[in-house]
């Protein structure tokens, strides 16, 4: 029984392997795919926030994009007004998102199902509109420009020339690793266990001593922190603004989460890779019968929507569930 008691060590090993794999890819891939992979890692973090919120605790959110925006804007303001380095700005972003998650969580903890879905959808609409409301602060529709900057000297002296996409990927990697490590620890520990218990049976969970509302709010807060982290990294690709975090981003992440497997960390990774690389995949696959431009443009949206419906109807556990199959998952 000593094996599972050291879940932290196991997760550490997995996280290190993950880092090594991505690092290897960062050297092997072409710049475009380096960039795509870095977006996938950002989405991975964003989807992990859904795995925590919806997968683990059973609360749906169609507004994770809004929390990503909170993270992005906080960081941009920190960088542009306080002159923070991107690293401090990222910390600030997570903190701001945690705070926003607290506010939203307090409102959301009383809601469930379609009510929660609809309300978070309105939130996803309302929060980015604040950017235009307070244009002088948030830069209006144009937003605020920030980026990863140039790779630091120590890195180039270590690795030779580092391309912009490669640097983007390498800068994202530690955060993705941290998110992976933290999430797998959370889900495999008593914290995750009690969140899942809450999801499966509120009455039994409260009889076991859990405070239902407080816990739901707490999950919202933690999940928001991850969303904020994903949001700032996504913004650091060049811009933080309403057009970076539209409602469709929230829905895209949810699609990724469901396709991959809403209860699984592996599923989050699969889902992130899928939604990022699906358009490339379709482009590659449709090369032989070259559909008209208009059809080709809407093909990724069509295919991912169909996959979403099929997943929900046929295999709600997602791809990861299919992979784990009978194995009881965590």
């Amino acid at each position, binding site marked *: 029984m000593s094996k599972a008691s050291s879940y932290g060590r196991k997760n550490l090993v997995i996280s290190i392997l993950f880092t090594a794999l991505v690092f290897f890819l960062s050297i092997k891939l072409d710049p475009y795919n380096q960039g795509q992979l870095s977006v996938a890692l950002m989405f991975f973090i964003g989807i992990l926030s859904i795995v925590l919120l919806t997968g683990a605790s059973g609360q749906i959110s169609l507004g994770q994009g809004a929390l990503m925006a909170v993270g992005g804007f906080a960081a941009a303001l920190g960088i542009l007004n306080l002159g923070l380095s991107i690293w401090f700005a990222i910390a600030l972003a997570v903190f701001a998102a945690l705070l926003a998650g607290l506010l939203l969580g307090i409102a959301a903890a009383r809601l469930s199902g379609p009510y929660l879905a609809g309300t978070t959808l309105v939130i996803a609409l309302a929060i980015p509109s604040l950017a235009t409301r307070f244009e002088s602060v948030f830069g209006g529709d144009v937003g605020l420009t920030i980026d990863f900057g140039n790779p630091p000297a120590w890195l180039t002296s270590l690795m030779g020339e580092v391309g912009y996409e490669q640097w983007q990927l390498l800068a994202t990697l530690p955060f993705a690793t941290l998110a992976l490590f933290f999430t797998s620890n959370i889900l495999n520990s*008593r914290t995750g266990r009690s969140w899942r*218990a809450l999801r499966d049976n509120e009455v039994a969970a409260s009889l076991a001593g859990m405070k239902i509302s407080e816990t739901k709010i707490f999950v919202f807060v933690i999940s928001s922190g991850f969303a904020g982290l994903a949001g700032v990294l996504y913004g650091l690709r060049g811009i933080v603004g309403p057009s970076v975090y539209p409602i469709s981003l929230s829905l895209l992440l949810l699609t990724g989460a469901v396709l991959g497997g809403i209860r699984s960390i592996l599923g989050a990774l699969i889902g992130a890779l899928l939604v990022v690389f699906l358009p490339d995949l379709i482009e590659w696959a449709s090369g032989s019968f070259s559909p008209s431009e208009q059809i080709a443009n809407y093909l990724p949206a069509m295919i991912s929507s169909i996959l979403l419906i099929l997943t929900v109807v046929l295999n709600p556990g997602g791809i990861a569930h299919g992979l784990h199959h009978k194995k009881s998952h965590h």
Partner: protein
Amino acid sequence: MDKNENILSIKNLTINFGGLKALDDVFLDIAPNQVVALIGPNGAGKTTLFNAISGLVKPDSGDISFDGKSIKWPKPSQLAKYGIARTLQGVGLYSGLTVLENVMMGADKHRNSYFIKDMLGLSSSNESSLKDRAMDALAWAGAAHLSDLSPSELTYPDSKRVAMARALVMQPKLLLLDEPAAGLGQDEIDTLAKLIKDLKRKCAILIVEHHVDFVSHISDEVYVLNFGKVIASGSFETVKRDPAVVAAYLGTDSSNHGGQL
């Protein structure tokens, strides 16, 4: 019996649902290491009483004291603190957790202060102690071999064992069992009776049960509810001959009970 000796004491408990009196001036005392059974026909208010004790229903009036201390009616999440554990009708296992995790949930004290440690993966020692306790409880319930299964893979009697283990692992002073024998075969009921007799050494037990034979074997004291009232209490032998109880169970051919429409 001195009321200070009682682990649980309820007085004048009344609950209205709309105009309906679900519980009417109910009293109940449980001494330590005693098995008290709550019986009565369907709809008599047994589950409502259980729910009131576990804080799932808010009484309109009445007092509850636990360990001699009068407390305001508890919230569900405080039960564990007071040392009360409960099984649910229809078992109520967490479907997304393994058997072991279900029981570990019972063993856990649930304070968010563990979060940072958990997130950093530093809670191994806590985890292993939780796990050891959970495995002990499962072993006691005869379900250790099921620890890695998911609740949906269990047979009904097995899931009852797991539910018992989950309640027991809380090390309660009072265990509330909701229809533990329902859906079990005779062999399994006998095993259950043994378990409960064994358990009695550790805590007091309040049990809602229909299976009278089972009740007669395990209970020290029986309360009979009908129409939200305690119509009889005492040892099973005395209670079962009480005309009011017989009438409640078998119906009356010529009743002089007041009609309530």
